[in-house]
């Protein structure tokens, strides 16, 4: 794979940046995220999370099973603040 291939589409993070973080000693999916923003976007790492776990395994030699996924937090899908804030008819469909 070329270094300029995009791994996290939402935040447009490329393989090269992720590789650099791992080679500098970052060994968890969460820490790669904090370093590079991969997984911080609209889909919250639903696609790139596994690829990043595989990359960590590949570059550090840890087994893929030992690499924890990033923490998933609510909401499952993006939700308008108005719905949370209690206004019933806040947001036109």
């Amino acid at each position: 794979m070329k270094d300029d291939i995009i791994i996290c589409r939402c935040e447009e993070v490329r393989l090269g940046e992720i590789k650099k973080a791992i080679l500098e000693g970052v060994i968890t999916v969460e820490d790669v995220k904090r370093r590079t923003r991969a997984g911080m976007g609209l889909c919250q790492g639903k696609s790139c999370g596994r690829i990043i776990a595989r990359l960590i395994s590949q570059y550090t030699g840890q087994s893929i099973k030992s690499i924890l996924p990033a923490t998933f937090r609510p909401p499952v899908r993006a939700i308008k603040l108005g719905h949370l804030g209690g206004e019933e008819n806040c947001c036109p469909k």
Partner: protein
Amino acid sequence: MLPQIADVVIIGGGVIGTSIVYYLANRGLDVVLLEKEGIGSKTSSAGEGVIFLQLKKPGIHLKIAMESLKQYRKLRDELDYDIEFTNHGTMLIIQNDEEFEAMRNHTKDLRENGLPLKLLDRKEAREIEPELSESIYGATFSPLDAQVNPMNFSFAMANSARKMGANILPYTEVLGIKVKKEKINEVVTNKGNISTNIVVNAAGIFAPNIGKMVNVNIPITPRRGQLLVTEVIPKILNRPVTAARYLAIKYNPDIAQIAAGKAAAIEPTENGNLLIGSTREFVGFNYYTTFEGIKDIAENAIAMVPKLKNISIIRTFAGLRPYTVDGLPILGKVDDLKGFIMAAGHEGDGIALAPITGELIAELIATGKTKIDLSKFNLERFK
């Protein structure tokens, strides 16, 4: 690789620990930083990045925050990394008459202490932030207040220290500290032991655990703050805006219990997401978000900036802040145990005070004294 010996061992790799290691390495000391997880992975990556001067108490608290800001400007120019430092000021939004009177006094107090704070009426506030609600009563505007990315700051300080020869060891846990003749002697970790005469406890919410290893009682309690992250949106705010009520909640835990989360703090970030916080709750080591907490934040945020109701959130999260009962951090030497130095308990001020904490603790270790008197911050004040 774990070194066998060091001048100083710092425990904790958040904004405080990484700042201390930077200033110590800069002074040429042989220094090791131990972090049980990743750099900046706990409290430092679970909050906003606002360097809030107008939320400080007049006196020494404000004074060190202003000194810290000076250091930030220097670091922005010196570091090889982008810490996303920006300076657009902050606003505290006033939502009723009582708050207006309280903020008039607060403004006077802080101005007398050297902070150029301005009290604005509704019209003036909405001139500089047009998306503020028509129903607000006014705002205070503090032009010196700034912002930084706390994660980038931690990485930048740690990496810069490493380039100057410091040993930065993430994923390394401290298991014990050995004391000989009432002096620090050795640090025991899951990867081996390090001989040292000086330990800095910069472990934030975990600082009491480190204290227990040497029989020092440290009154720091985790206080949870829940936050929301919005999608990336075109700019609707030019600077962080926070409910003025936050000031009361910050210093009076009783109010926080009644009005938990009813004072939103909205921070526009470099990337275009908004961070919206925050509750201040005592729930032990519980990192979960609650529907109630998130709902309260959403309601109050919309009350200040109505346009938010059509904006989506993509994540909620919570961080634990190291709370002390008087709202000040614990800094400096500890009586009865030579070589044990405290640098923890900043609660939400960690980001504002990180550079000055690093600078003063490094000065204390290297020279035995500090340019700002640390006696108001000592551990003994709680006895």
